């Protein structure tokens, strides 16, 4: 995940987004390619808990024309955008100036999701997007991911929750011991039991079966 999002530089192999190698791009450059990233741990990477909701929502787009007025930042635009996202993502709070650290886990995750998904990304890298949040928030985030998929955003979902994976994904890749162990083009035809076999490494697909992956 660190390679995909630019946190670490790639030493071997190549990563392509829209046909361009992003292996040695910085995080900023990757984000400029409209790649969004919902991180695994919202309190470490995903949010600054002592900053306000509005401040957390603009962290990835501070260079945008819309939020700046000359040298200064456009406060009205920032607050308007934050209020709109709070309403749209149904974040429970006292307003856009409340500190993120005072929200519940589910609402913090919604702040993260709102920031990452609102910019109509080309590619969404969602690392356990609903980990440790309440059922309604999880469902809400899943709905948003599906909605964006319908609008043409590619989504790479990484999750330890099999129901999440099976319920959301179109196709599945199982990795075991650093290698791709299985590839299912249509996730609705896979059972949890079968998936489990590949995940534990007791079964592995051969090259031809996985080969379909490269045609995509």
């Amino acid at each position, binding site marked *: 995940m660190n390679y995909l999002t630019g946190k670490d530089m790639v030493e071997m192999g190549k990563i392509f987004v829209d046909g361009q190698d992003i292996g040695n791009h910085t995080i900023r450059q990757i984000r400029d390619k409209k790649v969004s990233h919902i991180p695994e741990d919202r309190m470490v990477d995903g949010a600054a808990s002592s900053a306000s909701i509005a401040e957390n929502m603009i962290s990835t787009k501070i260079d945008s024309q819309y939020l700046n007025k000359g040298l200064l930042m456009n406060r009205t635009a920032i607050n308007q955008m934050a209020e709109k996202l709070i309403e749209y993502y149904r974040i429970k709070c*006292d307003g856009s100036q409340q500190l993120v650290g005072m929200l519940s886990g589910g609402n913090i995750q919604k702040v993260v999701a709102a920031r990452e998904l609102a910019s109509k990304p080309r590619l969404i890298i969602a690392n356990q997007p609903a980990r440790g949040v309440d059922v309604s928030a999880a469902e809400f985030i899943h709905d948003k991911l599906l909605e964006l998929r319908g609008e043409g955003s590619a989504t790479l979902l990484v999750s330890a929750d099999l129901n999440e994976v099976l319920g959301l994904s179109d196709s599945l890749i199982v990795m075991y011991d650093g290698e791709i162990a299985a590839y299912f083009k249509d996730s609705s035809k896979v059972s949890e039991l079968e998936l489990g076999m590949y995940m534990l490494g007791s079964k592995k697909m051969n090259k031809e079966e996985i080969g379909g992956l490269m045609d995509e």
Partner: protein
Amino acid sequence: MNKTGNSRQFEIIRTLAAVGIAMAAAVIIIFIVSKEPVNALYNFIVGPFTSLRRFGNILEMACPLIFTSLAVCVMFQANQFNMIAEGGFFFGALCAAIAAVKLPEITGVSVTAALLAGGIGGASLGAVPGILKAKWNTNEFVVSLMLNYVALYLGLYLMNTFIRDTNAGSKVSLKFQEGFRLPNIVPGTRIHLGIVIAALVVILIYLFLYCNKWGYSLRITGQNSKFAEYSGINTFMVILFSQILGGAIAGLGGAVEMMGIYNRFQWSALPNYGFDGITVAIIAKQSPKLVPAAALFLAYLRTGADIMSRSSDVPSEVISVIQALVIVLIAANSFLSGWKHRMLVKQSMNELAAEGGK
């Protein structure tokens, strides 16, 4: 009243409580050590307001404190515990002094040039721990603390070599040229144009930190550098830049102090304004908006203590006690937190009750 406003209100009450307790402790100490406590207290608390000159003393002492504490604010907000405000202030003052002795006198330009020299001097000093921290993750606290002494002795060497007045009895520089002095703005006091410059810098730094994307990046990096990095903010540059800017502000403060108060460079030790700047920044909760008030408060205490030590039997060191107590009480995060907790619970209960009533 929402919870955010409430928590800000709480911080203000907490700061005032800390100041109040410290003042009470000072009063008790004065009563213990003094044979004429009432006279001492009168001079300490009312003394600074008894004449225009004394009141002027408060303002002129607040001026350097505003600069150094702004420098500290900028660096602390980026989570860089850099102590370079001290050395930066000293070195900035020295650079300005060299400019004021050596550069040709041109009306209008010369003062700006000397101020600029001070700023650049301070910035170059701040850059050292900044580069080391950003590139090799050295501890900026230790580096800057040591660097202060490098600045002191390098500064004294430069002064001795280039601008020393060989006719003077002590180690002082040549007199500054008249065109390099900051004009006095209130007759009868030593209040100089520097206080106006300080006010301008306060506004600029406030706008920078809270209304500019660079300042925003700086604050976010300070609050959670991993989050900043994840968001695509160049944390390397922020870490470096915050310390250069902090050094520059401190250096500018040194230059202003030098050209406003003195007519020749005569410091032979670090003037301690940088460390007092840290005190002020802590009282002001690292917010540029509150820095002038906090600086005036400390300057008031200092002036009062000075007057007290001159006109009674209490030494001026008493205010170190106050200063230490204020810092301890403000820095102690759990001070009054039980009270805050009860406030929050009560408020939530009220909200619930209000919703139930609908």
